[in-house]
């Protein structure tokens, strides 16, 4: 997964110019043609978002945006199917971002990532938990 970090501009809600849109469209098309693009979305500024904090004892604090620490905020994401982190890096270097933009690549966990640490007992436990939580397997 490629995480696009927010900056002052995205947080301001400024829309990209036509040229920027076209460049990103071309880039996305190349990702599709290479068969690696699975999903991707842009996010509204945090001003339209909300945070829910868990205080324990089933109490919560709900805060409406905007949130201030821009560097920690997200502006969008891609989900790619690539064969290695290096391949994702090479693809990302070709994205049409201007100076200052920062993105982060984070591999999505798969069964193979647990390796020997996932003993049959741990795997069985994990399966039970996941079945209870109703989440995707490994």
């Amino acid at each position, binding site marked *: 997964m490629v995480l696009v970090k927010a900056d002052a501009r995205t947080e301001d809600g400024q829309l990209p110019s036509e040229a920027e849109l076209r460049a990103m469209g071309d880039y996305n098309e190349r990702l599709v043609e290479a068969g690696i693009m699975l999903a991707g979305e842009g996010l509204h500024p945090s001003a339209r978002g909300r945070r829910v904090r868990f205080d324990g004892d089933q109490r919560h604090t709900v805060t409406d945006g905007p949130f201030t620490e821009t560097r920690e905020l997200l502006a969008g994401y891609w989900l790619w199917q690539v064969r290695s982190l290096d391949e994702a890096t090479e693809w990302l270097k070709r994205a049409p971002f201007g100076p200052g933009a920062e993105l982060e690549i984070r591999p999505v966990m798969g069964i193979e990532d647990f390796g020997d640490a996932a003993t049959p007992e741990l795997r069985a436990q994990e399966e039970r938990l996941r079945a209870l939580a109703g989440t995707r*397997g490994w």
Partner: protein
Amino acid sequence: MTVSAWFAIAAAIRLSADAASGEIGRMEADPLRRTLDTLWRMESPALVARLARPLGDLGQAEELVQDTWLAALEHWSANGMPRNPAAWLTTTARNRAIDALRQRPRQRGKYERWALEAAPQAMTAPDDSQALEDDIGDDLLRLMFVACHPVLGPDARAALTLRLLGGLATPEIARAFLVPEPTIAQRIVRAKRTLARRQVRFEVPRRAALAARLESVLEVIYLIFNEGYSASAGDDWMRPSLCEEALRLCRILAAQLPGQPAVHGLLALMELQASRSAARVDSGGAPVLLADQDRKRWDHAQITRGRAALQRALALGGGRDRYVLQASIAECHASARRMEDTDWRRVAALYSTLAQVNPTPVVELNRAVAVARAEGAGAGWALLQPLLEDARLQDYAPLAVVRGDLLQQLGRRREAREAFHEAAALTANTREKAALLARAAQL
């Protein structure tokens, strides 16, 4: 210089770098080497395809692209990485191809035609990557049709496809198919020789020929997928990654041929089947049948993608295509939150259509199972009768299992027990054998 030689050199350098750097530095042992490896997988297929057309020679195209990587290794080690490595590789490879064509006096006409389309580029023009990459999809598509040409057998097509489009080396392909390296090496050499001898052209077939040639491409992609899918999770990592490679190839195809329902149908089928991967083996590594799978462990993001591809296939009028039909059946299973929620009437109807367009005894067997679920064991049993006499299914364990299943439901215990014993004898897999004997013992 062959691809294997390139990988051998790559491995040798990697080893020495690892030895020199010790434990801590291993991750950054040789960034240049790793970048070149990565770029090989990403860029070499399209480059080979691009050069193969004017050269008319797949082998020479591959050699020139390998030479380009060696040149990059030398050049970048000495001068640092260029700002746009992909453009550097493309330009260098193309200039080499033009040099090679210049050395063939009789082909001047061909060279000039190509040179007009694509004049040699100076090495100092790194920023025109866009123009150089414009037709990548088209190049890959041509290469796919060549690698999957019907003059080659299915095994040769699969090996050549993984080599040319996946950028995999011979040892990796051999590991993936569980066959010795020399077998794969020979398969690839022979395939390339056959393509050259039969003067296969580097082009996407036109309308009339497209359907048949596309069928051959889809068959290879599905073969690669099944090779990976039939492996259990505990196996070598290469085998599951074949599923991902097949999905990637099919997505490339779908992007290039968006109007072909069969392409979207195969993509849907593979996404829906792969969505069950995590649930297909239990914590001890034993296979789990569809009926017993924990459906919460299915990958629902993948099911959504499969469903979207299926919708595209159906919207294009592919309702009677065999991949689309199989995907529709897989979608029925994906939609059922519990086994007993499955719409068996719909599954039976889909199998009945599939049996018309793709009449095989295995499809008939599946149809009998679905009908038994939808209308009762008696109806399924009736459909099973002709199959019991079909010589092609003589030693087919699943038939004996279904026979045992239906006989048990019909209350014919003694015959059911015999059928399970027979199925156990036909099964090579020890876990399955034990499970079948246990069922027989319970009767």
